C-alpha cells in the first residue's frame, strides 16, 4: 500500500513535466485536472486503507498517512479537481508558451500541498508549505499587470516571512527534543506523551510556529496579503489557494497544537487561536459591509471561515470533527464560487459589484449556480457548512467558551447580512435600460460559459456529505483521535 503514498507526489510532477514537453498541444490544458485526479484517487485509496486499520508508511518513515493525512489529501484532490476542471482553459489559449508554465506550476502546487499533509516530519511539512508559496508566486502574478505584480510581491514577502517565523518555532521545538534521548522532528515521536520535552522551549516554539502558519492560513492580523492575492490570481488558482492552501496551513497548526497540548496543556494556544479567530471574523465583517469587488468579497469570506475554523481548533477535540468537515465544505464551495466569479469577470469584464446587475435576468446560466453556492457559503442547510458551524458553536458552549462563540455568532450575523445584500445587488433586479435599447439586453443567456458538471458535483457533495455517517463520520472521528482527542 505504501506505493500509493508516492502517487500524489510523483504523479503531479510527471504531469508538470508533460505540460512543459507537450509543445503546442491542446492536451496540455488537462494537466491540472489529471494531477488533481491523481491526488484525489490516491487520497481515497489511503482513506480506505486507514478505515481498514492500516497506516501506510513510505520512504523509511518520511511519509505517513494516518486518518487525518488521508482525509486532507482527499480534500486537496477534490478541491483541486473542482478548481482545475471548472476553470479549464480553451483549447486555443492552452497552446501558448505561458500556458505551459501555468499548468506545470498548478501541478507543482498540488504536489507541494500533498507533501505537506503526508510528511511525518514537521520540518518537511514546513518545507512543503514554503514550496507552496514558491509554486503560487508566479501564478498570482500570472496576468502580469501592475496590480497582479503588487499582489504577488506582497504575497511572497508576507508569506515567506510568516513561514520563516514558523521555521524559527520548529527549530525551537527541535531544540526542545535535543534535550531528550533522540532528537527528532518526527511528528509521531514528538507527540508521544512520555518524552519530557522542555516546556519553555515548546511554549515559545509552538507560539512562533502557530503564528507563522496562521499568516499562511490568512488569520487576522496577518491576513493582509490574502484579499490582494485572491483577487488578482486567475480564478482556478484563487479557488485552490482559498479552498485548500489555507486549510493545509490550518492542518499544520493542528499538528503543532497536538504537540504543545501534551507538554503545556491546551490553554495557551486556545487563547491565541480564539483571539486570532475573533479578530478574523471582525476584519471580515467590517470589510464585507462596504465591499465593492466580488472577488475580494470571496477573499474576505475565506478570512471569515478560517477565523471560525481557528475558533474550532481552539475549542479542541469536541469541535474537531466539525472543523474537518468544514474544511471540505468550505473548500468545495469556495472553489465553485471562484470558478464562477472567473466566468462572470470574463463575460462582464468588471470585478465591481455595482456594475454587475440583474444577473438572474440577464445570465441565469451563471446566476443560478452562483446563488446556490452563495446560499451554501453563508451557511444555509442542507449544505455541510451549516452543520459545521452549528457543531463548532455547540462544542464551544459545552467546553465553556460561550463568550467566544457568542461573539462569533454576532459577527456571523453581520457577515450574513452583508453577504445577502451584496449578492442581491449582483443578481436580483431589472436590467439597466440602455439608450438606445440594445436587442441583446433582454435575451437571457442560459449558457454556463464553461463545464457545469464540476459545479454540480461540488454542490451535490456538500449538500449530502453531512448526512453520510458511514464512512464519513467514522473517518472524521478517527482523524480527531489521531490528534489526541478522544471525543
Amino acid at each position, binding site marked *: 500500500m505504501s506505493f500509493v503514498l508516492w502517487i500524489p507526489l510523483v504523479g503531479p510532477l510527471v504531469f508538470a513535466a508533460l505540460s512543459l514537453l507537450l509543445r503546442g498541444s491542446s492536451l496540455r490544458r488537462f494537466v491540472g485536472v489529471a494531477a488533481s485526479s491523481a491526488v484525489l484517487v490516491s487520497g481515497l485509496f489511503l482513506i480506505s486503507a486507514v478505515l481498514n486499520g492500516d497506516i501506510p508508511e513510505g520512504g523509511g518513515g518520511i511519509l505517513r498517512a494516518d486518518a487525518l493525512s488521508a482525509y486532507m489529501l482527499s480534500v486537496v484532490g477534490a478541491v483541486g479537481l473542482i478548481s482545475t476542471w471548472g476553470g479549464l482553459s480553451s483549447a486555443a489559449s492552452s497552446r501558448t508558451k505561458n500556458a505551459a508554465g501555468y499548468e506545470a506550476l498548478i501541478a507543482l502546487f498540488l504536489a507541494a500541498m500533498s507533501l505537506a499533509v503526508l510528511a511525518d*516530519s514537521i*520540518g*518537511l511539512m*514546513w*518545507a512543503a508549505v*514554503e*514550496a507552496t*508559496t*514558491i509554486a503560487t*508566486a*508566479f501564478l498570482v*502574478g500570472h496576468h*502580469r499587470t*501592475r*496590480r497582479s*505584480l*503588487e*499582489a*504577488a*510581491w*506582497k504575497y*511572497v*514577502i508576507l508569506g*515567506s*516571512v510568516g513561514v*520563516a517565523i514558523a*521555521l*524559527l518555532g520548529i*527549530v*525551537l521545538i*527541535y*531544540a526542545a527534543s*535535543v534535550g531528550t534521548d533522540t*532528537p527528532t*522532528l518526527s511528528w509521531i515521536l514528538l507527540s508521544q506523551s512520555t518524552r519530557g520535552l*522542555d516546556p*519553555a*522551549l515548546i511554549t*515559545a516554539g509552538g507560539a512562533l510556529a502557530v503564528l507563522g502558519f496562521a499568516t499562511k492560513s490568512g488569520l487576522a492580523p496577518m491576513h493582509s496579503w490574502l*484579499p*490582494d492575492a485572491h*483577487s*488578482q490570481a486567475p480564478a482556478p488558482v484563487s479557488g485552490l489557494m482559498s479552498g485548500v492552501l489555507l486549510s493545509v496551513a490550518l492542518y499544520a497548526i493542528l499538528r503543532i497544537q497536538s504537540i504543545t497540548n501534551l507538554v503545556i496543556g491546551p490553554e495557551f494556544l486556545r487563547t491565541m487561536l480564539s483571539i486570532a479567530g475573533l479578530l478574523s471574523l471582525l476584519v471580515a465583517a467590517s*470589510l464585507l459591509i*462596504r*465591499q465593492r469587488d466580488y472577488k*475580494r468579497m470571496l477573499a474576505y469570506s475565506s478570512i471569515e471561515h478560517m477565523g471560525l475554523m481557528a475558533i474550532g481548533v481552539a475549542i479542541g477535540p469536541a469541535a474537531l470533527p466539525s472543523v474537518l468537515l468544514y474544511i471540505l465544505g468550505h473548500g468545495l464551495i469556495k472553489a465553485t464560487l471562484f470558478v464562477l466569479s472567473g466566468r462572470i469577470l470574463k463575460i462582464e469584464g468588471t470585478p465591481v459589484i455595482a456594475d454587475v446587475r440583474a444577473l438572474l435576468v440577464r445570465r441565469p446560466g451563471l446566476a443560478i449556480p452562483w446563488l446556490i453556492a452563495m446560499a451554501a457559503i453563508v451557511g444555509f442547510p442542507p449544505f455541510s457548512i451549516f452543520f459545521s458551524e452549528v457543531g463548532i458553536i455547540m462544542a464551544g458552549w459545552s467546553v465553556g467558551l460561550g463568550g467566544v462563540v457568542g461573539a462569533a455568532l454576532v459577527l456571523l450575523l453581520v457577515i450574513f447580512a452583508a453577504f445577502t445584500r451584496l449578492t442581491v445587488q449582483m443578481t436580483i433586479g431589472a436590467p439597466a435600460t440602455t439608450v438606445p435599447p440594445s436587442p441583446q439586453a433582454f435575451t437571457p443567456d442560459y449558457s454556463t460559459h464553461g463545464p457545469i458538471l464540476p459545479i454540480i458535483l461540488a454542490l451535490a457533495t456538500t449538500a449530502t456529505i453531512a448526512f453520510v455517517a458511514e464512512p464519513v463520520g467514522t473517518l472524521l472521528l478517527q482523524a480527531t483521535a489521531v490528534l489526541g482527542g478522544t471525543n
Partner: protein
Amino acid sequence: MFETFFPQLIGLCTGALLLTSALMVWRHSLLASIRLLALQGVALAALVAVIGIAEGESELGLVSLLILSVKGIGLPWVLAYQSKASIKQIQESTRLNPTAALLAVTLLSILSYVVVSRVFGLGDSSTGHAAPIGLAMVLIGFLLLISRRRARSQLIGFLVLDNGIATTTFLTSGGVPILLEFAVSLDVLLVVLILHVFTGRMRTKFGGTAVDQLRELHD
C-alpha cells in the same frame, strides 16, 4: 588545545554576525549591504564549521559548505547581478535616520538578551551564551524589512532574518537534520530568485523598484 579556543571562535563568529547585521542597518548603499550579506554568510558558515569540529560531526562540515556556497556566494551574486557601475549608484532612502536605526538595533539586541535569558536561561555552554545573537538578527531583519523602501533592500532584510533563524538553529540545537537543511536552503534560494524576477518586472512596469508604489490594491 581546541577546547580553549572554542569559546573564542564562537564569540568571534557570532560577533561578526551581529556586527554585519548592525552595519547593514547603518549603510545605505546597496552594494555595501550586499557585500556585508556575503560576509555574514561566510561568518555563518565558519560558525557551523566550528560547532562541527567541536562536536566531531562530519555532517556539519557538509552543511557548512552548503551555507558557504548558498549564503556566502550564491545569494549575494544573484542580488548583485547587474553591472558594477550602475549598482554603485543605488542608494537607499530609509524611513529611519541612521542614528535612530542604530539605537533601535541596540535596543533590539538588549531585548533579545533579556528574552532569551529570562525565557530559556542561557545555560552553561558557550553556544548557549551566544544564542541571543540569533534572535537579535531575526529582529534586525524585521527592522530592515520594515524600514527599507527598495525591493532589493527588503530582500536583504528577509535574508538577514533567515540568517538569524539559521544562527539560532545552530546555537541552540547544533543544527537540524540535513534533509531539512537542504530543503530550507533550496526554498530560500527559490524565494530570492522569484523576488528577483518580480523586482525586474517592477522596474519595467513602474519604472523603479520603490515598494511604496505598490498601493493600488486596498479597501
